[in-house]
């Protein structure tokens, strides 16, 4: 049934399009959906992706920038040469598809473990850490006056927010308390410069091909803040998928990441990067607790969600490795 609405929609804004085929739901929860489909066109089919909140699910969760902002950011990134899908259409009421946007489909792999292990990506892997540095530099340079309205978050505010989230779980974790103390004691204060921060830039949210990074996805946590946040988050151990000696997404070293970033003309502050890595590790741990809470209280009473609750201990060992490392 979504095919009928999509067909009507593409005929309106895609010159020459006659309809669509192969609509298939990819992922997402109740409030946000991702669909793939192909636009039928006399010059050849066009692969496309729909990201939408169905009707009745318009309100974005508090931390999310919202789909309209996401579309705007991806388009800005695309125009600035940051690898990103081209946004083809932002949904309007006549589309009868809810709110969201349609973008060009970028072929490649997003599953982190495949990217880290499959032969197909063997040639690209050694270059990814440095390439990611360059991409983040480009992203942090996007002109602030063209950005959509975004929340602004300092390190100090983030610590308070995580502490509140953690306390609301009523889930006493001495290691998390230690991490919160460390964050307060090592809060670097306001960043000299506030830029766009992607907010979820990591292995798993990148489309990778044989030639390297093809697109940066999942801009929904974008905000204004300390650019070093993105460099720290991409190094969180949870996103290394077992390749723990290669901090940048399991691809390579911090030195390569920093070199790529600085080669693109921006400065790295390694102490801030470390701060955000600790913060990011705690952030994922608290999110695991949130999953446990949603599992308990419903409506998502799934086994997967339950098991994510049992992954919080992974972040505890990673926090200890960061804050209280044992002799080697």
């Amino acid at each position, binding site marked *: 049934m979504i095919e009928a609405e999509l067909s009507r929609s593409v005929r309106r804004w895609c010159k020459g399009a006659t309809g669509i085929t192969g609509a298939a739901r990819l992922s997402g929860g109740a409030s946000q959906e991702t669909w793939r489909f192909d636009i039928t066109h006399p010059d050849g089919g066009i692969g496309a992706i729909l990201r939408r909140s169905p009707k009745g699910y318009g309100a974005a969760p508090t931390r999310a920038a919202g789909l309209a902002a996401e579309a705007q950011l991806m388009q800005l990134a695309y125009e600035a040469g940051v690898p990103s899908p081209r946004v083809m259409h932002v949904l309007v009421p006549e589309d009868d598809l809810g709110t969201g946007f349609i973008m060009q489909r970028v072929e490649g792999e997003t599953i982190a473990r495949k990217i880290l292990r499959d032969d197909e990506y063997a040639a690209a892997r050694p270059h990814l850490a440095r390439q990611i540095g360059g991409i983040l530099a480009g992203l942090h340079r996007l002109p602030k006056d063209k950005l959509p309205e975004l929340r602004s978050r300092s390190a100090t505010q983030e610590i308070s927010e995580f502490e509140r989230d953690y306390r609301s779980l009523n889930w*006493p974790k001495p290691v998390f308390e*230690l991490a919160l103390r460390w964050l307060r004691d090592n809060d670097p204060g306001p960043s000299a410069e506030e830029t766009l921060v992607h907010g979820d830039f990591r292995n798993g949210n990148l489309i990778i091909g044989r030639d390297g990074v093809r697109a940066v996805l999942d801009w929904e946590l974008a905000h204004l803040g300390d650019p070093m946040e993105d460099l720290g988050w991409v190094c969180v151990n949870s996103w290394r998928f077992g390749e723990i000696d290669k901090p940048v997404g399991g691809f390579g070293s911090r030195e390569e990441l920093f070199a790529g970033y600085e080669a693109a003309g921006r400065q790295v502050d390694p102490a801030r990067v470390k701060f955000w890595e600790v913060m990011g590790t705690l952030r994922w741990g608290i999110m695991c607790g949130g999953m446990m809470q949603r599992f308990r209280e419903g409506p998502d009473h799934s*086994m997967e969600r*339950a*098991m994510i609750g049992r992954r919080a201990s992974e972040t505890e060992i990673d926090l*200890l490795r960061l804050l209280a490392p044992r002799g080697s």
Partner: protein
Amino acid sequence: MQDEPTPIELTKSVADFLRNDITPLISGHQAFKLRVAINILDLVTRQLTREEGSDAAEVERLRSLLGIDGSVADLNHALAERIAKSELDLATPGLAEHLWATTMDKLAVDQPNYASYKRELGRGG
């Protein structure tokens, strides 16, 4: 006293049945869900096997760190509170060792294949 087989033996028998007899029959998303289900049963088996011993050791350490008595949950609450108030920190003798031992015991149940855990296990537990 309850009869046998023990909960560990019973849970393990279900996990083995699903793993050996059902897995070959199932594909797609249901196969993924089945793997998660088996992982859960394996986790429960590990916890039933280890929890009594690790909790007892944890309580022992917590008593000597905090100088009070209580259940493992009470003592963890108390420890969390004292760290939050900065009454205890990494300079406190025994705290880092306690947190390491407790965390290693959790990983042994939750995710024994987690790479950080395997690395730390290689350092002598």
